[in-house]
């Protein structure tokens, strides 16, 4: 489920690209400083968007410094100063990475995943002490999700719901943590809306991308039940063609809601990056998945 929330780099301005990278590096540094080197290897780009979005509500300019880092020894990279938003997005990313590994272990009995998850466990314990409620909700929803998957749920919306709720909670509690006083009602509503629909989008993207794999390995995929796949009557590409427009309708609808909510936020900085992700990055990834092209990254 990782690697979907990205900007379209080609459409970013040079400066925006630098700011975006500085958030990524800032999250990495923040994790390294707080939890040591090992967890840094689970870093993905997915929650950089969250960090940028959370800080976009604040007026102060980003503090970006050029620093060395362990992967790029020689060239100095732009790194944004650690803030609550950057630390929060980093924590969330670790939580999601951990559950993803556990999930891989349960699904495919991948011992490599189990080993990595065990490696992450001390870090997760630390995060749990601070973000207990978020971890509890995540776990609860994931358990619920695996129950629906076991029951071979054929209702797309029902099966998307737990993951959407996790993302809703992540975005919502992020904006609640950010504000000094009680968070503005409006921002809580908008962040919840974005998180919820982003969660639905990610889950459906993943389902569509995994159709072949799930059919060949005979594992659950909601789309096979929702659209009554029958291997004797149609080939996999035929099935994908048949359901494509319905899937596209849903994906575009989720993106429309994300953009509708994002348009209502009072964004004070990095607007170009946010609009890039919302209108180019997510859209581009959607069409890439729908056209069946493999991921480059």
């Amino acid at each position, binding site marked *: 489920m990782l690697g979907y929330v990205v900007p379209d780099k080609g459409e970013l301005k040079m400066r925006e690209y630098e700011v975006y990278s500085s958030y990524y590096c800032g999250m990495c540094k923040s994790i390294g400083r707080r939890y040591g080197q090992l967890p840094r290897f689970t870093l993905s780009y997915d929650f950089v968007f969250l960090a940028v979005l959370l800080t976009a509500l604040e007026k102060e300019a980003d503090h970006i410094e050029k620093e060395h880092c362990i992967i790029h020894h020689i060239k100095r990279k732009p790194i944004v100063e650690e803030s609550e938003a950057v630390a929060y997005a980093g924590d969330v990313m670790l939580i999601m990475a951990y559950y993803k590994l556990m999930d891989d272990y349960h699904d495919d009995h991948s011992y490599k995943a189990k080993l990595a998850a065990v490696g992450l466990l001390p870090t997760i314990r630390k995060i749990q002490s601070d973000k207990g409620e978020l971890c509890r909700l995540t776990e609860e929803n994931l358990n619920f999700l695996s129950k629906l998957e076991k029951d071979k749920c054929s209702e797309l919306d029902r099966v998307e719901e737990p993951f959407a709720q996790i993302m809703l909670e992540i975005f919502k509690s992020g904006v609640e943590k950010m504000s000094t006083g009680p968070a503005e009602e409006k921002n809580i509503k908008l962040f919840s809306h974005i998180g919820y629909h982003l969660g639905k989008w990610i889950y459906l993207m993943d389902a569509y991308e995994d159709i072949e794999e799930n059919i060949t390995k005979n594992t659950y995929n909601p789309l096979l039940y929702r659209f009554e796949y029958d291997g004797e009557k149609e080939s996999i590409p035929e099935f994908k063609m048949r359901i494509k427009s319905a899937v596209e309708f849903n994906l575009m609808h989720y993106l429309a809601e994300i953009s509708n909510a994002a348009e209502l936020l009072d964004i004070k900085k990095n607007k170009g990056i946010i609009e890039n992700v919302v209108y180019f990055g997510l859209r*581009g990834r959607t069409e890439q998945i729908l056209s069946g092209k493999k991921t480059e990254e």
Partner: protein
Amino acid sequence: MNNPYEVLGVRQNASEEEIKTAYRELVKKYHPDKYQNNPLSDLAEEKLQEVNEAYDALMKNGGGNGAYGNSYGGAQNSYQNQTTPEYNDIRSIIDSGNLGYAEQKLAQMRNRDAEWFFLSGMISYKKGWYDDAVTKVRTAASMNPNNFEYQTALNNIMNSGRMYQNNSYGRGYGNDDMMCKLCQAYMCADCLCDCF
């Protein structure tokens, strides 16, 4: 009131034409049609109000005072043809936002006619369950093909994703495929350089 120039996103000494263009863009952006049956509609309405006030302040005696504000000011009842008292009741529960209760009431009903599927679909829609909503509203529309309300709702639902696609095209998405590919190639090369 916030600085009207800031609200409209124009510079301090913008010309009348610039203000009008910015205003039109913003009205499009927060238009009630875009937020129909959407939990965010109140926030969009607020924004539109703010935009209207800013525009009025800058135009002072201009002709277009509150042109958009008046026609979309109050919350309009989105349902037109009301049927049985029971359904009317459920409609007002939906309008009040208590979706769980409305759902419960519908579940108790034996007779699943077009109206039942329509209201059930509208609840799904408000919950963000679009796949479910389309299926149900489509069922309602096919059970009662002459119902204008069902047909309109179905069209609106189907349009919302398209509106997003138009928006991203408007910003230059996929304008020139070749150019994009060149950029990607360039970015990849650049990333490599970045490592050292």
